[in-house]
């Protein structure tokens, strides 16, 4: 297996791409699609594999600069990375690379290099920086025939082939072949503007070695950082003084709160970068007089964290009511049993009983002021949101 390095994608693919298989990142114009192949290159190198990167839409030096921008030091792995320069010859510039496609507008020229590499190299991850550029220069039919052949050979020689492809207006026949036939797996990448969620997503269109999943995920590209799964809103709510603001600050890489006289009067807002996820956290006030604001803030949440003070069962009714006013039922949610350091704190089991919670709602014990249990709660919720294990 070769991991793609794209968060969650490897998990859905059952661990990654099996040796001998091919995968295409099928991206709509205008979205950040190129970074997918690059992240797979870097991830392969980092985990000790060999890699070929075919550069065809710009000069290799610019590509190296891009890797740097994402925070990926490829120089460190120079001896296991082979860059194929399919650009400089096109503009008549000299190339410093060892492998050069002499005539990037002829598929023969590509065939010569790629087939040699497939035969000579130990099992590697071969990534095409832009299949669409090759198609534009060499012709659609010609390129498709070549790709068909490369994929077959890669199967025999145990390589993994990964292609970045931008969906320009090619013939329907070409697009159909790419989407349905040519590759073992197709990952579609596009943009959405749905209701008020504006962003980019990826999803699995096809994969012949796993059960198909139609689920798609929002992502963001960070510089540095690369592709992160994006969760636009996680709501942190709960009764007065339960420790919501403390929780948001403990979890966040950076956070702000509008607190006056020790209580939240507007909201807490934080940002978390953790294990491939990039999430924005909205913390509500707790006191009833702010209920209009609590309602206002809770729309479009992808998941909810209900924080309760484990020493204060008198507030559990209010806590349940808050799930109601935030319209959290139906969304994935977890209960954080906070202040476990205090004498008389109820155990998570006792809290589950008192709340009469369904079995699939996790209760996580926490001491938010000491950052204990905070990331556990986040992870459990993320797993529920992304439908993971």
């Amino acid at each position, binding site marked *: 297996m070769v991991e793609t390095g794209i968060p969650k994608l490897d998990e859905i693919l059952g661990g990654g791409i099996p040796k001998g298989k091919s995968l295409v990142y099928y991206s709509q*114009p205008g979205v950040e699609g190129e970074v997918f192949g690059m992240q797979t290159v870097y991830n392969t190198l980092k985990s000790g594999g060999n890699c070929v990167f075919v550069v065809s839409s710009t000069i290799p030096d610019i590509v190296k600069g891009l890797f740097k921008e994402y925070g990926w030091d490829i120089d460190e792995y120079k001896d296991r990375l082979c860059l194929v320069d399919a650009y400089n010859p096109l503009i008549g510039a000299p190339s410093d690379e060892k492998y050069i496609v002499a005539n990037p507008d002829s598929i023969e020229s590509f065939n010569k290099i790629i087939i040699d590499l497939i035969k000579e190299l130990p099992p590697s991850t071969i990534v095409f920086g832009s299949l669409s550029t090759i198609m534009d220069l060499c012709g659609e039919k010609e390129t498709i025939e070549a790709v068909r052949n490369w994929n077959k050979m890669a199967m025999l020689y145990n390589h993994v082939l990964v292609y970045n492809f931008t969906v320009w207006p090619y013939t329907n026949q070409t697009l159909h072949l790419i989407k349905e036939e040519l590759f073992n797996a197709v990952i579609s990448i596009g*943009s959405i503007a749905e209701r*008020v969620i504006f962003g980019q997503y990826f999803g699995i269109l096809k994969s012949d070695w796993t059960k198909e999943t139609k689920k798609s995920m929002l992502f963001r590209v960070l510089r540095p950082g690369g592709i992160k799964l994006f969760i*636009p809103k996680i709501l942190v709510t709960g009764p007065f003084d339960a420790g919501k603001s403390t929780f948001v600050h403990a979890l966040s890489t950076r956070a702000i709160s509008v607190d006056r006289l020790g209580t939240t009067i507007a*909201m807490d807002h934080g*940002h978390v970068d953790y294990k491939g996820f990039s999430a924005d956290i909205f913390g509500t006030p707790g006191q009833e007089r702010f209920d209009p604001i609590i309602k206002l803030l809770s729309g479009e949440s992808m998941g909810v964290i209900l924080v309760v003070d484990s020493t204060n069962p008198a507030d559990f009714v209010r806590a349940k009511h808050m799930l109601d006013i935030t319209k959290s039922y139906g969304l994935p949610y977890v209960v954080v049993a906070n202040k476990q350091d205090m004498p008389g704190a109820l155990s998570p089991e006792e809290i589950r009983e008192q709340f009469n919670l369904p079995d699939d709602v996790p209760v996580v014990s926490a001491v938010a002021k000491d950052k204990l249990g905070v990331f556990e709660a986040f992870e459990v919720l993320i797993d529920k949101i992304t439908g993971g294990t």
Partner: protein
Amino acid sequence: MADTIDMVDKLLADLKNIGGVEASIAASRDGLLIRANMPKEKFLASLAAMSATMLGAAETATTQVEKGLPTRVIVESEYGRLIIVGAGPKALLIILANSNSSLGLILIELDKSAKKLKELLK
């Protein structure tokens, strides 16, 4: 889909071009950033969330005392101003301007843009 994004970007760019305007942002009523034209990206998400809260709090306050819905929220601060207007039921527009900007001109353009944004997000 991508077209809506482009159109919102255009609307924000037009607002940004008004003299003295430093940033223009579209956010959802519940505080999510939609799109922005602003140099300091890091603070965008919180600014969107805070602005939605301010407008929401203002709306709750004035309607409860039967004064109707506020037309806008204007925050005058030490080095400039922050203006928030509703743009239909889903969205709002936020403008950051320096102290030398012409408030009247900005408000006229902002109201027009708010109507347009409402249409774009229908």
